């Protein structure tokens, strides 16, 4: 990886080196969680573009277990990954990637997580265990993350404390509540994540 050490503590600004203006720096955060938990809605709430979708071919191992549900004659299964873009300023662009939360998409996760600053794990209180794979993965790669409980209308709701207990995360992991359709609330979740990333950066810079 040709990473640029000159970006260290320059606030991310790159000296114009050699030829012309360098592109801005992309920042990646992951929005993960189980099927139907509201990942795309969350991405769309903050994105300046309608969420785009890109397909990665799935491994043969997963073919046959996918809920196509339509009786289609598909021979190759693909998985869609939705993402959105937020221009922060002239030199930083934030990308939010909705990452498939199921175990069988593991082959995509390294690419997704490589270079990610942090992650949001969305939880549906009525199907809590759907988020375990994402939680475990983020913990394994030591990615800073926050847990956001998406409160769907008309579903049984639990307190944040009950959710924290059920998903069994470290006491310092923020567990917050969100309405994935609400731009301000999604923004607040992203800020919670960024503050967590900041706290870690500060503690590391102190040695």
């Amino acid at each position, binding site marked *: 990886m040709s*990473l640029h050490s000159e970006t260290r503590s320059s606030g991310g600004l790159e000296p114009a080196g050699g*030829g012309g203006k360098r592109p801005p720096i*992309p920042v*990646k955060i992951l929005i993960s969680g189980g099927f139907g938990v509201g990942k795309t809605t969350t991405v769309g709430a903050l994105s300046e573009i309608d969420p785009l979708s*890109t397909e990665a071919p799935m491994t043969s191992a997963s073919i046959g277990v996918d809920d196509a549900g339509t009786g289609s004659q598909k021979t190759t299964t693909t998985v869609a990954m939705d993402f959105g873009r937020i221009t*922060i300023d002239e030199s*930083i662009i934030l990308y939010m990637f909705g990452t498939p939360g199921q175990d069988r998409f593991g082959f995509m996760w390294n690419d997704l997580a490589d270079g990610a600053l942090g992650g949001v794990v969305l939880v549906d209180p009525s199907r809590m265990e759907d988020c375990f794979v994402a939680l*475990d993965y983020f913990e394994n790669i030591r990615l800073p993350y926050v847990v956001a409980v998406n409160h769907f209308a008309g579903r049984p709701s639990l307190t944040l404390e009950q959710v924290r207990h059920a998903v069994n995360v470290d006491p310092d992991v923020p567990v917050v509540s969100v309405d994935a359709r609400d731009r301000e609330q999604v923004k607040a979740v992203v800020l919670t994540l960024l503050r967590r990333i900041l706290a*870690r*950066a500060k503690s590391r810079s102190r040695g």
Partner: protein
Amino acid sequence: MSNYDGYQEEESFGRPFLGRVIRSEAEQGFTTPVEDTPGGVNRPYLITGGRTGGGKAGIGIETLLIRDPGAVPSGSWSPEMMMIVRACDRAVACAEVAARIGLPIGVVQVLAGDLVAAGVLQRSASSKSLADDVAFIERLIHGVSAL
């Protein structure tokens, strides 16, 4: 629609993988160890001559690509390369290029790597080294707050 793929053997609320590496490769059916450094998965693509992954080329899914103003179209470009170059008139992430031209990300990563090597595209630096950069994260927080 609940589809837990193997969760049946696990107790349903015990965080099945807590504290250990996720699933054996054989069980998972993919070839890259989860705890390993990324290097792309062996999925041969015709268009890329069987090459895969952004790992070697260093093109991540969020890597921004922009056409070098001085780049001249070459007869040796494949149609897919031509599409990629056309999509990079402004700085745009690899995933966005893939979505807009309808190619799998893995293909775009490989071909964009070729085009960067050929000097046709410029690529952004990665933000990976900025995870510990307090000033950078503060700028990010300031920027998101202002949205």
